[in-house]
């Protein structure tokens, strides 16, 4: 094979490409709400895309991870559908340089540093200059793809609801820079 065609796996049936189709739809949906895709990690059953919000002064990034659980075989698809987990992880980053501010933050946030706390179904992970809020959804991939406007709308609504929930949890952790 002279060209790069051999780089593509031979996916005989459309069910084998459902993850990618959903990732494509997610990237498109995010573009519509002014999020730019900045990193991609693609594996056979797990894909992660990180987005940068263009108009949100609070959120630093949002990562969406698609982890396929069932449906990679015809039997699995027939029995259980195309179940997957969709993980949303929003990040707030605090750019602080002043030693006084850093000291203050360290004292007030010490109890949370490197700890995982749970707020509802949202996990909060405090790192040095970042706070990450994570929530997982179990979805049927078929509900979000290949149904025209219906699936696009459902995906858009799910994404916006998740961003809203995560954002709300992170508001208290954003320091003025």
């Amino acid at each position: 094979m002279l060209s790069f065609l051999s780089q593509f796996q031979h996916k005989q049936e459309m069910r084998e490409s459902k993850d990618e189709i959903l990732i494509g739809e997610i990237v498109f949906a995010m573009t519509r709400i002014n999020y730019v895709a900045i990193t991609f990690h693609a594996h056979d059953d797990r894909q992660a895309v990180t987005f940068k919000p263009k108009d949100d002064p609070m959120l630093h990034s949002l990562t969406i991870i698609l982890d396929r659980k069932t449906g990679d075989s015809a039997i699995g698809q027939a029995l259980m559908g195309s179940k997957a987990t969709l993980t949303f992880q929003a990040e707030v980053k605090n750019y602080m340089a002043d030693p006084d501010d850093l000291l203050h933050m360290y004292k007030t946030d010490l109890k949370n540093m490197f700890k995982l706390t749970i707020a509802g179904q949202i996990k909060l992970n405090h790192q040095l200059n970042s706070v990450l809020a994570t929530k997982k959804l179990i979805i049927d991939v078929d509900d979000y793809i290949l149904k025209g406007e219906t699936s696009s709308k459902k995906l858009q609504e799910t994404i916006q609801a998740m961003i809203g929930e995560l954002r709300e949890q992170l508001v208290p952790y954003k320091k003025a820079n």
Partner: protein
Amino acid sequence: MQEDMEAVYVELVQSSWKKYEEYIHNKRMDDLLIGGVIPVMVGDGYALIDLSSDGINHYLRFEQLDSRERIIFRLTNLSEELVTAKVLGRHAQVVIGYGEHTQKTQTLFETFKSEMKSAFLDTNEPGVVTVDADVTAGYIYVQVSLIFDLDSYFREGYDIDYLLLRKHIMATVQSLQKYLRGRLNA
């Protein structure tokens, strides 16, 4: 005195963040290009059916599910180093392929055999249209290599000119489609 020194330190950290962001932004150009191409194609009614990478080249495959037309991309950042990007500008090699499904792939493969054996096929020279077939899936492709000036599409602050990117991609796809159909009907 101590406050003055602290102010100097704060300035140093802030300028470091700025430089760091510049390096990171340049390193992310591959991903930004992938992230630019996907919404352009999905917005035009193509489904992303393949996404992979060997670390240097990034491969995307889209399909128009009604017509079964496929568009394939190989994206390679040519200016990963910030110095190169600053001196020459940010460029990427973009190979775009257009494919149609056919029951007669083997026959068509024979038709294009001479072209496939051509010594020119291995070149990355822009504008050279090459032919290839995915016999297993029953697709015949034509493809062309181009060099995209990334500064035209990607501006500071993650501002992307999707319209221009779409115009350039679709102009290429249309030309490849015309060439393939012309060859098939010749």
